[in-house]
């Protein structure tokens, strides 16, 4: 099990991302569990807003759009980009080549 939080990587605001096809989110009072059916790894998203951002990624042109959507103001952005970077490193979210919603059938 891993928790998000520390990472070397920051996601680029201009890139397009989405939840990986093998990953499902389960809302919980503290945020959400994310489970990857391929790697059988469980991760924890420790804030509701981060969950909203992750869900918004797939339907926005870029990361900045998702953060705007969820009202993440400039001073908070580095923390969110780091958290998203950790999710990216863990394979929970993936790059989208185009800006359209990906087919998410696993």
């Amino acid at each position, binding site marked *: *099990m891993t928790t998000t939080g520390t990472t070397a990587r920051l996601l680029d605001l201009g890139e397009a991302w989405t939840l990986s096809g*093998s990953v499902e989110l*389960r809302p919980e*009072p*503290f945020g959400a569990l994310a*489970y990857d*059916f391929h790697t059988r790894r469980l991760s924890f998203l420790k804030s509701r807003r981060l969950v909203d951002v992750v869900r918004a990624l797939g339907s926005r042109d870029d990361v900045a759009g998702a953060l705007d959507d969820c009202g993440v103001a400039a001073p908070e952005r580095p923390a969110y980009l780091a958290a998203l970077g950790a999710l990216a490193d863990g394979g929970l979210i993936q790059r989208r080549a185009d800006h359209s919603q990906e087919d998410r059938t696993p």
Partner: protein
Amino acid sequence: MTLIQERPARPEGGRLVDQFEYGLDAPICLTWELTYACNLACVHCLSSSGRRDPDELSTEECKALIDEFERMQVFYVNIGGGEPTVRPDFWELLDYAVEHHVGVKFSTNGFRITPERAARLAATDYVDVQVSLDGATADVNDPIRGAGTYDAALRAMANLQAAGMKDFKLSVVCTRHNIGQLDEFKAIADRYGAQLRLTRLRPSGRGADVWDELHPLPEQQRELYDWLVANGDQVLTGDSFFHLSAYGEALPGLNLCGAGRVVCLVDPVGDVYACPFAIHDRFKAGNVRDGSGFRGVWQEAPLFQELRSPQTGGACTQCSAFDACRGGCMAAKFFTGLPLDGPDPECVKGNAATALAGARTVPGTSQDHSHKGPVRNQPVPLTLMPTRTKPASACDESPLAPSPGWTT
């Protein structure tokens, strides 16, 4: 344990472990014992398995339960028993769970993992297998698990490896006799491309009868802790050993008792218990056959509400190691007759010694499915004397819950 009248409110943010103390909307670690039937008779069986319960959930009821797990987003279940593969519909239920996005990790003694079955298991990411082995050599394993069980487990692992299954689990219950074999277990796991999983022997089920003779000695606990610190990132423990964190550096993992908070057990007849190691009426929260089903039990059972609060009183809260150790395992305390808010029977600071030496009432089991007669492969313990063929005396009864008594 006292009933908390007013539950403190869940904090915002903070550490996960603090969040988990307040429980989750669905369990993370759900164990489902599919059957109490077993082809073996291991001396330390946590669920006193052997004979099938005639009231077992039917195939249709099992499928309905899987549907409910899917709705609740229980991502995976740990299927055990008994020996789950003994159930004639086992493979059908496995397929059904996979089709319904419920991953399965199932525990097996390996006897039925043929090359054909292994190939089937290797074909999907949704299934993981855990082969049980309690000695790195047959002379340590077989007295506990039964004649021929060492060879059967290794054969199963060879079949899984040949089928291309990766990272399946080799699961070991740590005892007095195998603590010295940890490196050998690791070598066996590596040889088969498996992941080593070490768990704690708890005095649950038939384990209560042999716990005194089998649980690791204090110096072995230290040896185990040091080994875990050195190899921690390469072995799984299911957070079994957080009571050892009191030695110093916390072990990786959550370090809390998850019973009824993130952990629960569904038994073959649908009874829901707080933890697989707490099969006793005291920790029974309800049954999936009740009106509101598994969801109702998990989310509303008074027992679970009671367990979902941080511990505030008791001797352990005064201990310098409390934040890491949390007083240890609730089930271990209960089945050794110790107070639930006091130290674990294997407290590394020795704080349970006096209580263990003094007068205490051991609750005993509230159910037993052990074979009544001899079993093929029956373990021939060298020094252990399982007492499960004798009826319990009245003083073995729990003061907390009426015990229906043993069936023999």
